[in-house]
């Protein structure tokens, strides 16, 4: 039982770490397109939404 709880805690910790990695490297991947102004704001949204959610609607 104790071992099962530890395995569940381990999987949860791994997924938590994955979540923090994804958030941490957003700048390293898309920061330059965001900062250089290549990505323009869509109506009703901001640059951040477009970086993450709208492939094919740039420039």
């Amino acid at each position, binding site marked *: 039982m104790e*071992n099962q709880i530890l395995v569940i805690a381990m999987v949860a910790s*791994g997924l938590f770490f*994955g979540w923090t*990695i*994804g958030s941490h490297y957003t*700048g*390293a991947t898309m*920061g330059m*397109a965001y900062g250089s102004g*290549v990505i323009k704001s869509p109506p009703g949204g901001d640059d951040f939404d477009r970086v993450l959610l709208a492939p094919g609607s740039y420039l």
Partner: protein
Amino acid sequence: MIAFFLLLGATFESHNVVTTVGTGIIRGEDMTPLGAMVMMLTAALVTAANTWMKWPVSTSQLACFSVVGAALAMGAPVFWKTTIVFLCITWVGTPLMAAVLGYFFTHFTDWFRKGKSERGDKIMGYALLVACCYAAYTLGCNNTGNAVGVFFGLGMTTPMKAGFIGGIAMAIGALTWGRPILEKVGKGIVQLDLSMGVGAKAAQSITAHTAAALGFPTSMNQALIGGVGGAGGARGLKTVDMAAMKEIVISWFLTPVVAGIVSFILYSVLAYNLNIH
């Protein structure tokens, strides 16, 4: 876009790094659920703290030193001479290789743009987006192993399945809490034109992708800083905000040490309370 390309890289090309983190720092049979939990929880907390502080650091270094800290507390042998030494060489080599590539790529993009003012800008804009998508793919290849490598080390799943699961978690992270670092890197550290941006971005991605293909987790942030430095060198410019860089470099050295110490203490406390030896 980040989520899509990141998931592709995590699923199809992260297996080499997954294997390195899972079984390359300590023996797979020495890994216990408590040890694995402590390693990842420590790395996650330290990474979250850096994101909150807006310091772009290496999660690969955090993950590796979290493994080392917990392994020392467990009394498990660490492969110092092979893995850690080679990983350190990779971490030093990453910004250097990215700088050299950034220098040459920027010269190439300058040559390409010559005499094509408006059309050249448009092409460079698309090229920068392609390079950013490639960077997201490389992130999936390179960093997924840090989060889920120990799942493979414990024999819970295959490297590809581990990569897919880790990729989903990372994609959700980018979608929900990516803004602080995006603002810092995008507007607070570097000032580049399009040619230099494409050169630096291509240099970063190729360097990190090469390391991932060889199975060595490296830092996308350190590769980016190297690429930016090389791109600036091609123009004889200082492209990096030195005040911002100073705090980032300090955090590069500080955070792996903090991760190792926290991991060691956390494992010792939990093992004592749970009576695990």
